[in-house]
């Protein structure tokens, strides 16, 4: 490899990227989300999706779900870097260590009349999306499912008058009786 003269070794890594969903249990305290996000931006990791909410109020616990991509070495780094943060209790790689269920919720606004309007309703029915707002020329659909299903639904709505989409990002939980 012909590298330009430099104080650093410029290296190309060719390992393929993988997508992983991480569940991170944290102490719910000021700044904790900024810490997690700062880690990703500071070290150049990707965030595809991020959701966070308090899950156990008495114990001040929040759960952050992060979907990220990277080479296996980078994914391992991300987990270790998260785990060593002081307010982080636990990091579970839902993609690697568990059979897990992932869900996302989206609200999809579609505007149209006549045939398009009927078609959007018919498709919403097929996707088990609910109508949560309606006017004579628009619908807002609520749909839950995995990311692929939601993407597919949005793609179908596009030619039918898609106006806007609001998505929650991915939440994930392991199957079976055990907690994380």
């Amino acid at each position, binding site marked *: 490899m012909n590298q330009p*003269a*430099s104080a*650093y*070794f410029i290296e190309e890594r060719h390992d393929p990227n993988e997508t992983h969903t991480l569940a991170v249990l*944290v102490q719910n305290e*000021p700044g904790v989300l900024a810490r997690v996000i700062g880690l990703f931006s500071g070290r150049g990791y990707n965030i595809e999706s991020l959701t966070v909410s308090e899950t156990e109020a008495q114990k001040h616990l929040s759960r952050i779900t992060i979907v990220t991509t990277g080479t296996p070495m980078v994914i391992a780094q991300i987990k*270790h*870097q998260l*785990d060593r943060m002081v307010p982080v209790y636990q990091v579970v790689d839902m993609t690697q260590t568990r059979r897990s269920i992932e869900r996302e919720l989206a609200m999809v606004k579609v505007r149209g009349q006549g045939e398009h309007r009927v078609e959007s309703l018919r498709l919403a029915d097929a996707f088990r999306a609910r109508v949560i707002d309606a006017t004579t020329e628009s619908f807002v659909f609520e749909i839950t499912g995995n990311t692929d299903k939601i993407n597919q639904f949005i793609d179908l709505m596009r030619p039918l008058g898609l106006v806007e989409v609001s998505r929650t990002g991915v939440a994930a939980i392991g199957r079976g009786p055990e907690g994380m």
Partner: protein
Amino acid sequence: MSDKSHDSNQMTGAAMIVRALIDHGVTDIFGYPGGAVLPIYDEIFQQSEVQHILVRHEQGAGHAAEGYARSTGKPGVALVTSGPGATNMVTPLTDALMDSIPLVCISGQVPTHLIGNDAFQECDTVGITRPCTKHNWLVRDVNDLAKVLHEAFYVATTGRPGPVLVDVPKDVQFATGTYHPPRKSDVHRSYAPRVKGDATQIRKAVSLLASAKRPVIYSGGGVINSGPEATKLLRELVEVTGIPITSTLMGLGAYPASGKNWLGMLGMHGTYEANMTMHDCDVMLCVGARFDDRITGRVDAFSPGSKKIHIDIDPSSINKNIRVDVPIIGDCGNVLGDILQVFKAEAKKPDIKAWWQQIAQWRARNSLYYKKSNDVILPQHAIQSLFEATRGKDTYITTEVGQHQMWAAQFYGFEEPHRWMTSGGLGTMGYGLPAAVGVQVAHPDSLVIDIAGDASVQMTIQEMSTAVQYELPIKIFILNNQYMGMVRQWQQLLHGNRLSHSYSEALPDFVKLAEAYGAVGLQVTKPADLDGAIKEMIAVKRPVLFDCRVAALENCFPMIPSGKAHNEMLLPEQANDEATAKAFAGGKALV
């Protein structure tokens, strides 16, 4: 609890801060006052258990606290005001994070009701310092202060040590609340560093070491951070196994430079024998080091044929740059103890006579060779003279950053840990002088020398005033080549010798400068005068600026050119123009 003890635990936030310092055994802190910390300064004024050293710039406080910490194994403490006081701490905090130095910084903040208002001297201190601390806290309630302070000391000093910051708004300093002494429950339940290594992994490590034909131990700053026990065990392991040992810049002194298994430092400016041993080994035991890019050279050609064992307390250090075969997460001292125990019970010294013969051949290349002169002082020679003059004395060395730092690492022999304070990870010019101040505060009767460069020393020269005020007889030994030598060397090697802005134009007269501060100035230009001048410097019981005029254009070798492997080092005798040009062939640097 009796009413009386209850009463005595009622105090202001400012008083709690001083009380917590005392409860954590802190005897010296480094700081600089300002509006947002005046209540704390008022408390400091009214007591005598904690000595406060007034620096001349907050960066100086941070590096002094680092020097204090690194030379004692105790946490260093800095106290700064809000806004500019806090932003001036960013460099030392980052430095301490990179080099795993336990530091507790207390910063003042504007009153809570003004936070977010762009108040005078307000800045988002916890936001700014979040990526350069191990953890930080903004305390909004005086009744949380004791718990946070105790946790801060705990986090800074346990696991992989590092800097922490506690930001205390001025109203919280004034408010009265309940203090409690340190207790276990002060710490986040989520924070639990692993200390003990996995027994199965330790067995694997022992069997690899025992069956090795070409083993090497590569140790780092983690061994020193772990404490005296780790150093003792490392030395014992080398003795029991007979394995050669090298170390990173940060790890110097864990194994004595005079020890018979010592290969010298490894890495970009390490010795030929250390780097070749790393490259050709079949088993590598890495203890408390992190396969940094200055160490590995080209990653895909790094020690290609070896099985690697890696002991580190920080799981994120493992498999970050280099894939290892036997990771052991735990404290160096603890794991080394276990390895030794299993080794002694179950294994024999590996037979590595042939390996030592090979190493002897590499050693014979004499990779630290330089040509002495009668007319001009060679920087390497100056360090060797300094080493000879201080041998057997109770000496601590700090450095700035540049060629002089590498020459110090190559030519000064460290026999004990905690004697060598240098900015490794961040490479902070201006570290050494204030670090020497901190070291001298911790060891008032020892000889403390900052091996400095003419450019670096100017970055924090103001701390000479601190040294004079507190009668700290630090010696600033400037290898004055009138260049930012390391920059000039790279420009020569990589950028067609276009010496863009690397000449130290308009250098001050260091002798007069010393005198202006009320310190002692010495200058030497001739090799024949060097030893006498060094003697004089050591004899003076006051701070000294020593202007050692050295060869201007000397380069630091040996060297692993960028993008090259350990076995492609450029040795001093080969470093003629043609070979150098070839080794560094390529376009201009992109990074």
